[in-house]
């Protein structure tokens, strides 16, 4: 991979002029090997306050009961399962990037996969907390597992999508964790080699005695490939099964065969948006502009546009099927999203997810960092509302009008959700302090072929067609980390 020259018309994946292997290591490990800056401390304080709020709100719920949330006899799930699906969805980008893009040899993934996978794991942790805390009797949370027991011949209900969900989420979490950790091994070894004292001891344990021999690398590559193969179906299966939590029910608005692909697209959509939100800040704060370049940003924006459009098509399909089915309850449910008491939530869902993402068709917007950042947040707000709309708007007015009810969140509902965001960021901020936020070893792989300096060398060698070089230079204008005047001179 590393030895051949890449076509000049491909945009560089690493910018900067004098990037060496050592330089990469230094750049990436700067936050790991130095004391954190002010920005990190501020961020960490806020995030950990949020995490404390989460601990408090969840403990309050455990102590007093689910009644401290705003649920009622009609709306049995609301912010809890909305939050759960939202976090699981966010957790989808990581594995997609690490597994599917690896299989498709999309080298640009190398710069972003580490953070994306970490984000996945933290998001799934947040989701899992909801699984437990939404239960009426969370101390029995192990009962949905098919464990041998002494309760008699009591087994779990394999017909229940909630049981499938338990399997799906736990499998996804463990595979993601293994995949992420395996990828970390060479980088952990790098830190170990540069560290001293107690840190060296810790990292040497964590790196599992990595030696860096050819055989080790060979095995490493093989394991990664195998894990990618295992993870790939999981990317599709997890949200498929989460969608079945709804699709297998009778509830109008849930009982829909389109849910699996629609949910998977939506998950990737929100996952990439979250990666975008995090990396746009990380690259700036940690000074990683040369590794996470405008190319990456635009590529992710394109995926957001694609998946957002798929989601849009799914929305239209739902409305068409509701109309075409002639089912009066389903028709009412979909109309209710616009004309019911929660019309504003419906507007947030369709507005944020469909209308706003269509802005990405414009290159100016795709390559504008502030707008991209805002849009990535808009997408996640929209996706939160999508789940809220599906869950609450469907439930609050279903079959029997006498039971129609409104859902009003309590401050505990809000605290659990806000707190889970705090928990997520606490974990993420700790992650960038102790582990390399970019997969150094994998970035080094492509330094010789796909970096700006390699391309410049190629241009300087003078064997290229002028037209192609011009095309290449043109493409560099959008990069904020490339000084285009250098090329003008040349």
């Amino acid at each position: 991979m590393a030895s051949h020259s890449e076509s000049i018309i491909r945009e560089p994946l690493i910018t900067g002029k004098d990037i060496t292997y050592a330089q990469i290591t230094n750049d990436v490990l700067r936050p790991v090997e130095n004391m954190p800056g002010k920005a990190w401390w501020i961020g960490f304080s806020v995030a950990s306050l949020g995490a404390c709020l989460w601990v408090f709100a969840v403990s309050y719920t455990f102590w007093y009961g689910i009644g401290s949330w705003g649920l009622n006899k009609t709306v049995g799930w609301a912010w809890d399962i909305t939050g759960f699906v939202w976090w699981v969805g966010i957790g989808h980008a990581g594995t997609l990037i690490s597994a599917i893009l690896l299989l498709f040899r999309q080298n640009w993934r190398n710069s972003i996969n580490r953070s994306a996978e970490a984000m996945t794991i933290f998001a799934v942790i947040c989701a899992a907390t909801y699984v437990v805390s939404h239960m009426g009797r969370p101390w029995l949370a192990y009962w949905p597992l098919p464990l041998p027991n002494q309760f008699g011949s009591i087994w779990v209900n394999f017909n229940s999508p909630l049981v499938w969900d338990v399997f799906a989420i736990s499998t996804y979490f463990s595979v993601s964790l293994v995949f992420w950790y395996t990828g970390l091994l060479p980088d952990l070894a790098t830190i170990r080699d540069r560290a001293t004292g107690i840190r060296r001891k810790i990292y040497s344990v964590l790196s599992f005695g990595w030696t860096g021999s050819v055989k080790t690398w060979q095995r490493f590559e093989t394991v990664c490939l195998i894990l990618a193969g295992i993870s790939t179906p999981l990317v599709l299966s997890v949200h498929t099964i989460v969608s079945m939590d709804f699709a297998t029910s009778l509830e109008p608005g849930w009982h829909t065969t389109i849910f699996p692909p629609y949910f998977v697209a939506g998950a990737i959509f929100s996952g990439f948006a979250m990666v975008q939100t995090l990396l746009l800040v990380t690259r700036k704060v940690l000074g990683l502009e040369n590794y996470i370049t405008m190319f990456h940003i635009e590529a992710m924006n394109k995926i957001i546009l694609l998946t957002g459009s798929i989601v849009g098509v799914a929305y239209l399909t739902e409305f068409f099927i509701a109309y075409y089915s002639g089912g009066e309850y389903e028709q009412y449910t979909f109309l209710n999203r616009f004309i019911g008491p929660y019309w504003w939530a419906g507007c947030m869902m369709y507005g944020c997810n469909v209308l706003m993402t269509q802005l990405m068709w414009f290159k100016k917007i795709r390559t504008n960092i502030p707008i991209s950042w805002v849009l990535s947040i808009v997408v996640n707000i929209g996706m939160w509302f999508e789940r809220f709309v599906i869950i609450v708007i469907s439930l609050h007015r279903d079959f029997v009008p006498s039971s129609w009810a409104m859902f009003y969140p309590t401050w505990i509902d809000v605290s659990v959700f806000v707190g889970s965001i705090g928990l997520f960021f606490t974990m993420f901020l700790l992650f960038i302090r102790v582990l390399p936020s970019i997969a150094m070893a994998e970035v080094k792989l492509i330094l010789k072929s796909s970096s700006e300096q390699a391309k410049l060398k190629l241009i300087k060698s003078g064997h290229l067609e002028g037209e192609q070089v011009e095309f290449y230079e043109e493409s560099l204008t959008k990069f904020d980390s490339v000084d285009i005047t250098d090329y003008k001179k040349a």
Partner: protein
Amino acid sequence: MDSNKKYWKGLEELNKTPEFVELNKHEFAEPIPIEEVLTGGGLEGRTPRRDFLKALGFGVGAVTLAACQKVPVHKSLPYLIKPEEVTPGVPNYYVSTYDGQAILVKTREGRPIKIEGHPNDILAKGGASAQAQASVLDLYDTNRFQSPTKNGAETGWAQVDDFVVRELLAIKAGGKKIRIVSSTVSSPSTLGVIADFIKQFPTAAHINYDAVSYNGIIKGNQNSFGKAVLPHYNFDKADIIVSFAADFLGTWISPEEFTRQYVSNRNIKSLESKKMSRHIQFETGMSLTGSNADVRIPIKPSEEGPALVALYNAISGSTLPGTKTIDNKVAANAITIAAKELVAAKGKALVVAGSNDVATQVLVNAINSLLGSYGTTIDLDNPSLQYAGNDAEFVEFVSDMKSGAVDAVFFLNANPAYDYYNSKDIADGLKKVRLKVSFASNADETSSLCNIVAPNHHYLESWGDDNAISGYYTVLQPTINPVYDTRQAEQSLMKWSDNPLKDYYSYVRNNWNTSLLAKGGLSGQSGWETLLQTGFVKAAPVTGGSYTFAKDLNAVAQTILDHSKELAGDKTEVQLYQSVAMRDGKRANNPWLQELPDPVSKVTWDNFAAMAPSDMKRKGLVDGDVVKIDANGYSVALPVLSQPGQAQGTISVAVGYGRTVVGPVGKGVGQNAFPFYSLRNGTFQTSATATLTPTGDNSPLAQTQTHHSIEGRNSIIKEATFVEYKKNPAVGTGKSEDHKDYTEKNNLFWQKYERPTYDWVMAIDLNACTGCGACVVACSAENNVPVVGKDEVKRRREMHWIRIDRYYSFDDKGDGGVTREHAIADLNTDQLDHVKVVYQPMLCQHCDHAPCETVCPVLATVHSSEGLNHMAYNRCVGTRYCANNCPYKVRRFNWFNYWNDARFENYLQNDHTLLVLNPDVTTRFRGVMEKCSMCIQRIQAGKLKAKIEKRPLKDGEIKMACQQTCSANAIVFGNRNDPDSEVSKALASERTYYVLEELGVQPGVGYQTKIRNISELEA
């Protein structure tokens, strides 16, 4: 033959080597190192000793620590000498009487836990009201007086007796008046005790005072026929009923009895013989009765008089002086139609009016006389004795008190300081009374003004009798020893009047022996014992005279029309009514009743000002906006509620709320509306004119249903008119049309399950159900359903296993009416007045293909081989998916630990109220789902009983709690496998449909369509 075989264990033995021979001499071939062990390091070694001590230390420590866990000791004491009739775990039933109605009291291990209707009771034939069901909880109310009090301080009975007797003798000597004020006493023995008391104290008198009075009817009958009685009405004999604001299905006189009578002309049996009564209701607020009427016309209180005059004119063909045309075109038209129909049904017609105005009742008597109702639908010879309150006598008593002419007063089950319209007069008057005794069992407004409280027993602790309808004598027998240090009021009166009989039980026995037993053909000890098993005796009815109205009506019409003129005007007219749940407010401390939704408004824990939707729009008010209501010099601030069908320009307010001296449950619930009453021509009037001023506050009402229309969903509610029904009984069910069969045989997708023995199902007749809600309380009592309080109901978390859905439809032109939210918003005011109501009891449908069962991850809800959907509370982890997936939304989640959470401590948590719980049903912990179990404990008990008696189960032997208490018999439960069972027959009715049957969940509860007897004239 001897064997010379030789067995050897080794070559050494075979060969007998010297070593072997040597070693074989010892017991063990190799020496055991005993010496070494005993003397060597074995015991002295340091390690084994230390290990031993470690093990010992750990062991003792661990055992000690484990033993430190304090094991709670629950003392359950067995009977030292077991009463013969009590078997732990097996309930005993005793007959008794609630409010003149024979009942059965279910007791377990010596404590009453449930009231059941008495199947032979002649009033409701097994039905019981919500109040009767809830009354058992009052027995265990810890807020009851636990001992007598004197000037607010607890004291003993001896001191009280001493004081009262001394005072009474002094008062007797002084010669001033002594008064016993009670709500209507219909018990012959109590009346006897009071009569004896009066004999002893000649200045004494007994005054019947009812908070909600029927004195107008009694005086009207006195005036018209010379008989001062409350007649006994026979709604079952009426083909057409026209009611002017009489809520006879909800609160008027004897609602359970009237419900039974009324429904007998509208239920499945009647319809199958193509007969159905017709019911036209003219009223102001939407009452339970009005909501069941075939035709309901909203009229203002001021229009009631002119409407009755017009009806009289139309029937008699004459014109009373002063008659004016009625402005209300709809009402005028309806009067014409009603008159025609009434005349056509002469002898089978009945007109009733809820008014307490004498003139109005005289006019109604005249109308009924013209219609030949006396002797058929109205019985004056066997009158009702349920209400005998005399308004004028009470008013006179109040003025006597104020003038200082009364020296002693006894309040028996009367609370005028709360429910008299001028309670200040009571307070002022009582200050001048020397001896004030209250028999209240709970602190109330009046007892707090008395110097002696001699708390009465709860009726379940009492001996006694009752006589609701002349000739119908029922007996009360105690089912428990007194819970607190109370004494029956009759006993106190006997003691204070030095009655020759020393205890009230003997008095009752005596009374029955001498006069009452004979009426039922019984006598002596065996007669008494029979009575204690049957519960009542029924004397042969008096066959009577004929009654014809022959008085001059001119003055009557003038009085009525003058009154109407006074009410009419720019001001808002106020109608005061009793709510079905709270009635006159005496039971305000009963959480089951406070949480029982009002049948029409579905409001719990509050009273409110019901207002027409068009008035609300005009005034810019929304539900819950608080308005100040000023009338008759009194004002209260109450939230308004948009009530379709409320006459425009009026509000309706329920009395019975706003108790100030009451236990913690009833405190601060609603506002008192009794002061809006007024006295007119000697009777209390229930209408007034008021000015309304919005206060700007909004106080949301706790409703259990907030969406009121069916949204055109005709697979939930199916209805038809009687005309259509006669042509095609299946009309409205959709069966005759191009109807897909959703029954099991057409459902290939799901596995079919065997129901080898029983297949428990239920049938509910929407045409019989009046929506009263007695089943809701019965279910709560039977199944230990927690009470959650106003705040939680507001959050839509009430726990009732059965609920009554109530839907409105508007502007019915024979097409089912407007039922969609957005279409209703576009209706004009007249169309909004034209509202129809339907009730639908909704409980777990026990679907054969239950959607809740497939989604539960832990199999906590599963299906039985008897067709029931079970809920295993112990297995539930509380994901709530089952509730989300239930199309009927009947599952209830324990959001909190209602049995051990300070917020709910006033309801059912304390040591005494816990005794009311049904020991056959577990209480549910927080985080667990619950729902209707189809009274599984009753099914089990029934099956076991049949098994013990070695016989097959009989149809109808097992009754659900909801079914048992239903006076309308709207609910039938039974085994579908038995084609002859009542339920199979009911489900075979052409009117049967299943709610949401197109979902394919195969519900086990079938409903029969609602039929409305609407003629083409008003369509």
